[in-house]
């Protein structure tokens, strides 16, 4: 039904384009045109499609909730909770669609009939209103075509609006992220105190079984302490940085200061391949090769090593991050003005002394910025940890044990079927919002540091 309506509107828009252009050619025979004939077509087509489609979209957004309020009006006197009302509404909808299998009460049957009736009214009203709008806007547009008004400006203003709305897309996505996370997280914090979440030291959401439709508050208190996850996240990121910073920084310096053109031309893109490999592939590599390898070495040295150690996950993550640091620090070092180098050489310093004592301090803010970006990348990394570092949230600082991270726990909680309204599912959104805040914070600092650095030298 909706599809037919939209197709009809679009087809009508195309027809009106050709109609408008033809009309322009007719006008041309008696008076001077104000724009190219195709603008007459665009003008009609835009007036045809835009109002109708906007009304259609608004209608589709608001119709379901309006129908819902009408249906649930009959139930207001029964003193039901929000969840129960939602359940009834789902039942009514299923019954109307003929997919309901439970037992049917008279009341429910009545509601279902009412639902079908309302839907029918809504549908015919929608078609009628949209047809009316089409006729109205087309006749309005046609009158100004007949009068041979200016045609190009309105079309261009319209196009500009389309461009503007598209640029709002990115803002909409951000709003979507914040609201979808906040909405569920707030409900989570109604059940679990925010203090228990941020400072609790036990993360064990599987413990919160549901009794009589209500989760046991005693157990809830001790199950959602996110400290082990925060600690694990930063611990694994720290291990990754221990691998990535020395290798990335040194190769960045070598590439920008020492390497000949040939080496630079080939080595840089090859190192950047490391950043293009999907993370799930790294995860497989960490779980199958690096994990057992670390375990073997550890056992040979007489240490007790878990097969899924934080060290294996962190080290592989570090390899993944090398190109971020090497490329960014290469760019930053190349941006240091040549006269600083020349001054240092003129004083008799060797190349490495110049790098260590002049270029590195000068490039430091940029390098710090690139490291912060890399940390934010490591904090948000998911698949390597899920596959290589175990899923139990241990509060440990031993790199040979398994730990879990925020991202890995989100996956563990949400894999498979989820039930909305369950504190366990909601806790994933609470974790998501803390992850979002942490990475946003790191990025804002990093970007502003890098920006200041650029302004200094450019």
């Amino acid at each position, binding site marked *: 039904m909706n599809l037919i309506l939209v197709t009809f509107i679009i087809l009508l828009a195309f027809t009106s384009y050709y109609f408008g252009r033809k009309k322009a050619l007719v006008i041309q025979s008696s008076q001077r045109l104000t724009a190219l004939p195709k603008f007459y077509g665009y003008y009609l087509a835009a007036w045809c499609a835009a109002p109708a489609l906007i009304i259609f979209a608004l209608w589709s957004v608001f119709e379901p909730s309006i129908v819902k309020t009408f249906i649930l009006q009959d139930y207001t006197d029964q003193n039901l909770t929000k969840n129960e009302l939602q359940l009834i509404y789902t039942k009514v909808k299923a019954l109307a669609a003929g997919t309901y299998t439970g037992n049917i009460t008279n009341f429910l049957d009545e509601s279902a009939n009412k639902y079908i009736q309302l839907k029918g009214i809504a549908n015919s009203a929608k078609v009628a209103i949209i047809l009316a709008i089409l006729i109205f806007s087309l006749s309005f547009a046609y009158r100004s075509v007949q009068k041979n008004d200016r045609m190009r400006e309105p079309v261009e203003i319209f196009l500009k609006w389309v461009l503007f709305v598209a640029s709002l897309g*990115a803002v909409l996505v951000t709003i979507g992220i914040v609201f979808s996370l906040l909405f569920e997280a707030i409900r989570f914090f109604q059940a679990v105190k925010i203090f228990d979440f941020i400072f609790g030291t036990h993360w064990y959401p599987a413990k919160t079984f549901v009794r009589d439709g209500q989760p046991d508050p005693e157990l809830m208190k001790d199950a959602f302490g996110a400290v082990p996850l925060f600690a694990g996240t930063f611990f694994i990121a720290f291990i990754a940085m221990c691998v990535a910073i020395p290798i990335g920084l040194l*190769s960045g310096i070598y590439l920008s200061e020492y390497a000949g053109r040939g080496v630079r031309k080939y080595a840089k893109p090859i190192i950047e391949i490391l950043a293009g490999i*999907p993370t799930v592939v790294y995860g497989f590599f960490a779980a199958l090769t690096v994990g057992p390898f670390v375990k073997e070495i550890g056992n040979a040295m007489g240490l007790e090593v878990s097969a899924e150690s934080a060290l294996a996950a962190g080290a592989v993550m570090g390899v993944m991050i090398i190109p971020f640091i090497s490329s960014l620090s290469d760019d930053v070092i190349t941006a240091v003005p040549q006269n600083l180098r020349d001054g240092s050489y003129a004083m008799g310093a060797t190349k490495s002394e110049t790098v260590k004592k002049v270029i590195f301090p000068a490039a430091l803010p940029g390098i710090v910025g690139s490291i912060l970006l890399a940390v934010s990348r490591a904090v948000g990394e998911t698949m390597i940890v*899920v596959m290589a570092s175990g899923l139990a949230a241990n509060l440990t600082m031993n790199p040979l044990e398994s730990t879990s991270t925020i991202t890995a726990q989100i996956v563990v909680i949400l894999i498979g079927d*989820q039930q909305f309204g369950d504190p366990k599912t909601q806790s994933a959104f609470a974790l998501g919002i803390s992850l979002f805040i942490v990475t946003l914070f790191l990025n*804002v600092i990093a970007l502003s540091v890098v920006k200041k650095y650029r302004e200094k030298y450019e």
Partner: protein
Amino acid sequence: MNSFKKNLLKKRYNAERRFQWYGKIAIGLALSFLAVFMFQIFSKGYSAFQKTWIATEVHYDKELLLIDAESPSKDDLENADYYDVAYKAMTSLDPGLPEEEDRQLIQMVSYKYETEVKDLLLKNPDFLGKIVPIKLTASDDVDQVHKGNYPRDIPEKNRRVNDYQLQIYDMLNERGDILSEFNISFFTSPDSREAELAGIASSFMGTVFSILVCLAFSFPVAVLAAIYLEEFAPKNKFTDFIEVNINNLAAVPSIVFGLLGLGVLLAVFNLPRSTPLVGGITLSLMTLPTIIIAARASLKAVPPSIREAALAMGASNMQTTMHHTVPLSMPGTLSGTIIGLAQALGETAPLILIGMVAFVNTIPGTPVDPAASLPVQIYIWSESAERGFVEKVSACIMVLLAFLILMNLAAQIVRHKFEKKWS
């Protein structure tokens, strides 16, 4: 020059040389990680492109098939009972085996061997009543033994292939009845719980659909947004806000987009779970900032003289942009888009959250059928304990990497072939 100064100079030159070596070692390490990594994947995965068959003979006995008709129709063949015929084909490999032990022989072929026996007769109806050679898919354990991935010298109770089966395998191998052929079914069959039958067709189609949906949603919006920001946006607070927003969005961890997909697309808009449609939309939100940034950079690279020339000829701002600036910027935009899509192609976590990890043993035909995607398939298989899946994962990784390399090459070609150099 006194000796003290000489020593100092020597020390400084040594330090210089050492520092250079650190750099070389760092680059060497980074490159060797890549080499080790590629070697591991290839050495583990190449065998998955070979499939092992067991050759034997099957007697299409009319009585055992329970076919009464003199000249049976297609339907008769379709509905015949192949259990005994298939069973006999396997047990004939070792006629001396007592009946209660013959499960050991049956376990050497894939559990779908009955279907294979049936398919051969349906393809060649004149085989009815004859004894013909047939090849049956070997079970993944026999397959792994044949490829040498399976240690034979550990105690029998720790092995999935027992001594008797090994003996039969050796006998067949000596007779040349174990065949190795290119594994077409890896590319044409959907996922399966059995390693020997599992293929990537379902996840491959899932990936293709997700990428197409992602392209359809992200490309138009991103290009229009880039045009607005670069060519029309007034310099004010709101424009700055949009810009900051885009930069931050590009750095949001991918899993957060998965939460968005779950919380908005599935819970609010009630789109179908586990489908490439939802996966593609989720990925498109992620690629949106990447494409906007690439498109803006390539619009910025179009020299102002082009715009000035068009404006001087009396074109409006919109005409200048749409007829001149945007077409000239397209090569850069397109190559940025392909790179953005390649990133989206490798994403796993957001797709897991919107349910694309469900076991799917059909090949999806539309974007609203449940499907997995290649990276998710890698995750699913790597969680399986069976040994046969290890090489499948590596092979799947090889396919995924090949796909990524192709896309990056395409991006390079688009950029170098069509981009105009302004100088």
